[in-house]
Structure formats: C-alpha cells, structure tokens
C-alpha cells in the first residue's frame, strides 16, 4: 500500500507538471505575443510593446514558465488585465459557488443513480427494470444545458417556484443559496445519474450472483437488507471509479450550466475572460480546473485501493 501511494503520488506530480506545460504552451507560446491578443488587433505597436514589457513577455519562455509555475504553488497568479485585481481573489470568490454547485450535483447524482440502479437490478428483466433503463438511456442523450432550459421553463416560467437564474451569494443563508443552486445541480446531475445508474445496475446484478448473497438469504436476511447492505457495499467498488470520472465531467459541465443560469462561478468567469480577451484569467482558471480533475482522479485511485485491497502497486 505504501509503495502504491508513493508511485501514485509521483504520477500525480508528473501529470500536474505535464498539464501546466500544456496550458503554458497553448496560452503563452501559441498566440505568439499574448500582449497583442490582450489588446486586440487594432492596438498600436507602442501599446503592445509597453504591455509586453509590463507582463514580462520579453523574457525567455523557460523563465516565464518557472515564474508562473512557482507563482501557482504559492497562490500568486498574477493580475487580471480586465478586472485589474489579483486573479487569485477572482478565482477564490467564484469557487465559493462552483465547488458547492459541483458537490451538490454529485450528491444528487449519487442519490438518483443508486436509487434507480438498485431498484432496476432488483426487478431484473421485469417492466420496472426495462422502464428505468429506458429512462436512463434517454437521460444520457439529453444535453445538460437543454435540460437546464426545460427546468427553467417548468419551475421558473410556468410554476414560478425558483428564480430563472442568478445567485445572491451565501449572505441570505445556506438554504437560500442552495435553493438557487438546486436547478443547476439537477440539470448537471441527471445525465451523470443516468450513466451511473446503468453502471450500478450492472455491478449489483454481478454481485447478486455471488454465493455469499445466497447464504445471507438462506440465513433469513430480508431481500431488501441483502440488497442495500451486502450487495450494494460490494457493488460500490467499480461504481466509485465511475463516480470519480463523473466528478471531473461535472466540474467541466459547470462551465456550460453556470452560463445557462447566469451564475457567477468559475465557468462564467472563464467565459467572460474569453470575451474580455483576458488570457491571464483564462490560463489560470483552465489550469485550476484541469488540476482539480487530475487531483479528483488521484483521490479516486487512492479510495479504490483503500476499498479494494486487491489493488497493488504493480496495477498502476
């Protein structure tokens, strides 16, 4: 286990360095002169030259990369060109929305998927199973931003239970904040829940064929108790891996859904930064999201090894 942790941690570090190199190459080297992109095509050469010097773009690429990467480690992400504020403050402010949104969406995904997956497996090949799996098939095909629009049409335009978008912050209390995030979280969760429900069903069906399930039933444990404790606990091992990958998808999905609901999160910040040609904010936000994806995958691998002792260092 110790060796597994060390090897996996080294892979994590290498992946993070690789990710930062790609982000740096695409955002700093490919544009030629980032100052020109920031100022737009109509900028005078003098203005471009001045900004080039101000941003340090005239220094060698390796030196710039080192300056940026070491800044990332200590939380010094530079200054936003459009907002004239430190990028770290902008990102911190926006993460207060994006992280709770992704966590709430993941919670909705898990609850929906386990309910649907286990119920379908318990009614294997019966009407309930066919109906739920058909519903899951439809769920996978629905674009999350369209589902978001449909939710707004029903709950905001027709029933007027929720606002059609926006977020007033956590100042009005946790309940009000969560209420604003519920529709966006649901629209993110439905697609992922549909995928996870199919995995859960397959995994539960697989475990239900095991001898220990028959033994538990023979000892008089009820079908429901066997299903939700014995079977589900064992079926969760492969399901957790999928959950980890889905959390990464949810993080990326927030970019779209935050725009549907006009939520001031990290996704909307990136989107606005593209509009403002604020390459520095785009670069740092993309790096942060990519790092979050990599770190989540690392945590899932570790969890996987903790839950399933059969995973060995040689497996990675």
């Amino acid at each position, binding site marked *: 286990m110790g060796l597994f942790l060390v090897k996996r941690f080294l892979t994590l570090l290498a992946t993070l360095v690789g990710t930062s190199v790609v982000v740096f190459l*695409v955002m700093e080297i490919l544009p030629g002169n980032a100052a020109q992109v920031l100022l737009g095509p109509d900028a005078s050469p003098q203005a471009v030259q001045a900004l080039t010097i101000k941003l340090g773009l005239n220094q060698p690429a390796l030196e710039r990369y080192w300056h940026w990467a070491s800044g990332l480690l200590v939380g010094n992400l530079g200054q936003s060109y459009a907002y004239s504020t430190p990028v770290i403050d902008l990102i911190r402010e926006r993460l207060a929305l994006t992280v709770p949104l992704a966590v709430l969406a993941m919670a909705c995904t898990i609850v929906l998927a386990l309910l649907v997956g286990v119920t379908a497996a318990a009614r294997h090949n019966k009407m309930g199973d066919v109906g739920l799996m058909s519903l899951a*098939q439809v769920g996978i*095909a629905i674009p999350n*931003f*369209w589902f978001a629009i449909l939710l707004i049409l029903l709950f905001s*335009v027709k029933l007027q239970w929720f606002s059609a978008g926006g977020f007033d912050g956590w100042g009005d209390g946790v309940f009000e904040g969560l209420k604003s995030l519920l529709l966006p979280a649901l629209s993110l969760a439905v697609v992922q829940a549909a995928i996870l429900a199919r995995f859960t069903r397959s995994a539960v069906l697989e475990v239900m064929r095991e001898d220990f399930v028959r033994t538990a039933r023979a000892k008089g444990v009820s079908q429901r108790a066997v299903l939700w404790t014995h079977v589900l606990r064992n079926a969760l091992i492969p399901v957790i891996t999928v959950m980890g990958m889905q959390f990464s998808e949810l993080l990326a999905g927030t*970019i779209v859904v935050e725009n549907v609901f006009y939520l001031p999160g990290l996704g909307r910040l990136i989107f606005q930064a*593209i509009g403002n040609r604020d390459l520095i904010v785009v670069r740092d936000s993309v790096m942060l999201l990519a790092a979050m*994806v990599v770190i989540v995958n690392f945590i899932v691998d570790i969890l996987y090894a903790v839950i399933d002792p059969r995973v060995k260092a040689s497996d990675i």
Partner: protein
Amino acid sequence: MNTQAAPIALAPQAPGFWRRAVRHRSFAIGGVLTLALLLAAAVSLVWTPWSPYNVNMAARLQPPSASHWFGTDAYGRDVASLLLVGARASIMVGVIAVGIGLTVGAALGLLASARRGWVEEAIMRLTDFSLAFPAILSAIMLTAVFGAGIVNAIIAIGIYNIPTFARITRASANAIWSREYVAAARACGKGPLAITLQHVLPNISALLIVQITIRFAIAILAEAALSYLGLGTQPPQPSWGRMLSEAQTMMFQAPLLSVFPGLAIALAVLGLNLMGDGLRDLLDPRLARAR
C-alpha cells in the same frame, strides 16, 4: 501459450448479421433515428421548406402552422428549415472529430500494442494526462487564443477523442497479439506492421465501430454545448446549440422555441447510443448474454 479470449474477436460480417440486426430492438430504433438524422442533413442540401438564412421580422415568433411546421424564431426564420440545416453541422463535427480521434488514437493504440515496453508506457501515460482536459477546456483554450469558430471546436473535440480510442485499441489489440494465429504469423516471418494490418486491425474493427457510434454521439453533444456558448458554429450557419442559446432569450414569449432544437439533439444522440448498444450485442453475443 495464452489462449485467453479477446474482448471482441468477431468480424462485422458474422453470418446472419443483418437478419439479427433488424430484429434487435435497440439497434432497429437507433438505426431509424440515425437514418433520420442523415436524411435530414442530406435533404437540407437540396431542399428546405424556407431559406434558413432569410430574415423576415414581420413573421417573427409565429407558432407552429401548416406553412411553418415548428414556427418561426425571433428573426422570422423558419425553425424546421434551421433544424434541417443544423443537422449538417452536427454530422460534420461528428465525422471530422471522431475521424481525428480514431486515426490518431487507433494508430497510437496499435503502436503501443505492437512495440510494448517503454513506447507503450509513454503512450499510455500521455493518454492518462490528456484526460485532464475535457473537450470544453481544450475548446476554451483554443478559442481564447485563436478566436471562436467551428474549426477550433472540431480540433478540441477531436483531441478529446484521441485518448479514448488509444486506450480501447491498445487493450483489445494486446489480446489479439497473444493469440495463436499471431504467433503463427510471426513464425512465418511477418513483421509487426504486417501483423498489425492483416491480423490485429481487422479483428478489433468491430469494437472500433461500436466506439465510433458512441463517440459520434458525444461529439454531437460537445458541438451543441460549444455552439450554445458561442464557441462553436458561428452565425449565420445554423446549429442546434446556437438555436437553443437564441431561444433562451425568448423563453417567456416563445417557450416552444427552446424545445425543438434540444429534442433534435437528444433524438440524434439517443439514436447513435442505441445503435452503439445494439451493435455491441450483435457483434459480440457473449456480452448480450451477460447483460
């Protein structure tokens, strides 16, 4: 000698394939929906009820009627015509992006499998870390640098497809490489390239075909999302994703406008997914029995 079965070793031309295919519920429904998508795009090349580019403010936001089957949008354009032409954007992005993923990914997977050792290790670690960039993040980086457009969206979705194809190709190719007939081919003096082209590739083609339909569906969803954000297909070229973003601004006046493009995307994706599921069962009956 390792005689362990490959994940998929059946060729698409298994006997009675088409007879079984039309009887397979998922494949039949998926096939009909996919054909409808292709037909919509093909028909739009020669005919649309109205011009999808024709702005007519006098006829804006009309409800569905005999002359405008799905009504008109905020600029008076016929929604049915926009949907027909929009299918072209989805198919184009799907074909090119999946083509990029398949060619580069399968080539990397086959190379990893044929060479093994450090080449395989390097390729697999490369795919590992490219998973850190979901399609939308790659598209955002490219857009921020080069500007919004369909080409950047296609490249981003294509890059996103590469690791998936590489991993699947490598896993199934490794199983083929351990087969006896590959050992026999080696004994006959065939090199890695000849074995890859004559034995490995034909035997993993079924798996790749299944993956193509699934990745095609994902590419349609990604294109729609990028176009919705304004990072994909650009005006005046119609696209389902952009139709949705325009419809959202008219949500209170014309809610139906938000329904049709989303339905078109969902049906196209559903069709491809069902067809992929059906193909998987048809090409590898062992999986169908296990499900």
